[in-house]
């Protein structure tokens, strides 16, 4: 793990724009939605994460990454969100009240990070589903369409739609919880 971190730090310090780009593409969405949970404003969330990447570059010779790169990114975003919340509070003269509140309410939680990570994982796995299956699954989950509506729109039987969705769920479960599956099979084989 530390070996991997060393490589990442060296890459960051080299200033190689392509490396920054790949990290950005990988993390931008999940960090932004993670920030959005705290600031409840997507524009501000985007700004916070974009600033993080600029700072990452500017301070690349001065990074204190203790655990691993992923939690470092999440923690940095979290801290910026809290700073933002506090600044807004100061501006609104509710300083004391909200500060107390925020200290109680907000501490960085691995759990929140894991929720965001799971969301990201599910999203990327959905994108990897085979064409028709992905389309139908998204119509149901993203667009909130009923299976009958989907069937009508695509001129398919409702049963086909259901089969495709169950196929999607099966694939997703297999890819998102692979270890569990192996373990389950192993236990069953016993």
């Amino acid at each position, binding site marked *: 793990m530390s070996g991997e971190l060393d490589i990442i730090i060296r890459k960051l310090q*080299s200033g190689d*724009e392509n490396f920054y780009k790949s990290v950005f593409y990988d993390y931008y969405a999940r960090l932004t939605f993670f920030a959005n949970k705290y600031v409840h404003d997507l524009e501000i969330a985007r700004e916070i994460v*974009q600033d993080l990447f*600029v700072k990452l570059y500017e301070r690349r010779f001065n990074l204190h990454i203790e655990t691993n790169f992923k939690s470092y990114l999440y923690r940095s975003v979290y801290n910026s969100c809290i700073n933002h919340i506090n600044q807004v509070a100061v501006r609104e003269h509710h300083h004391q009240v909200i500060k107390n509140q925020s200290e109680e309410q907000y501490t960085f939680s691995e759990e929140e990070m894991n929720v965001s990570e799971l969301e990201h994982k*599910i*999203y990327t796995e959905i994108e990897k589903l085979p064409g028709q299956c992905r389309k139908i699954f998204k119509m149901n989950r993203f667009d909130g369409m009923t299976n009958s509506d989907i069937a009508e729109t695509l001129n398919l039987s409702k049963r086909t739609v259901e089969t495709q969705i*169950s196929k999607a769920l099966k694939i997703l479960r297999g890819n*998102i919880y692979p270890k569990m599956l192996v373990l389950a099979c192993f236990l069953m084989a016993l």
Partner: protein
Amino acid sequence: MSYKRTSKTSQMDFEKIVRFLSNELSDKEKDDFLSDEESGNVTGREFEQVRKIWETSSALKKYKMLDTVADWATVSSRLKPRLKQRTRKLPLTTMLYRAAIIIIIAAGLAFGLHKVTSLMSGHESIVVTTDANSREVTLPDGSLITLNKNSALRYNNRFNKNNRELFFSGEAFFDVSKNASLPFVIRTGNTTIQVLGTSFNVKEDTCALKVTVVSGRVSVYETKNRKNQVQLIRNQTASFEYATKKIIYGENSDLNFLSWKTGRFEFFKTPTADVLSTLANYFDKKLILNINLKDSITGVFENQPLNEILKEIEMTTAIKIEHGQDYIIVRK
């Protein structure tokens, strides 16, 4: 018992789960399903996992609301001035060049120059730099060099007597006169390019040094490790990656590596996005793409102003292009 069940956890159960999750079961069916679930037709954990995926995925439409590509363009432009400065010409060497020019103008201060350019073993240096425009330089051996914008080269007064060595940063096209007894040697950051008599283009990019050969034979090697070397011939190109120190080489497929010098752009079935990015690069603009571009472009533009080129592209594709002092923006 267990083997059969594993293979059966499949189709039927998942479809039931889907109908359960879609809330399409009657109350009785629901009860049956749940008790069925407890009795183990679907294991509790499996069901919870599927339910989790089901519920979480309904909130994921939001992922479409972000345009990672566009937002990276914003972030990258905030990094770029700094990235460019750092790699195009190292701040220290830039300062050395500036210092050198001032000293030449002041004249007679050759001694100070020795110190500044001690790398050159203490002989009078000739420095040529460019800012906003490219320019041509003829060297004492008759070689013709076209320096692109923001580039610099330096050689000393023994050039063409004891050696043909020069230091270089930026981008330039070298048309080197033949002299089999005095190899022509170009030193850049970490690499050395050595030739007898040929023509080729050298470009220091953000992450690599690129050499593309037009005629003759060129060798490119890491200055500190001569074994890390490649030999290039006509229409071959090599990239020396600063980070890995690897030299990658092959046939040159970039039709426009000399556009900066010739003002000529040639595209053959080139994806529209690549065409625009080539143009943006050449005209020093930032490219903002608000749509996914699908078509490709084939054609030649010769010494045309940007607005003319963009108009022609607009006419042949279904996109709208605007451009300002710093930007090219593409809309539907």
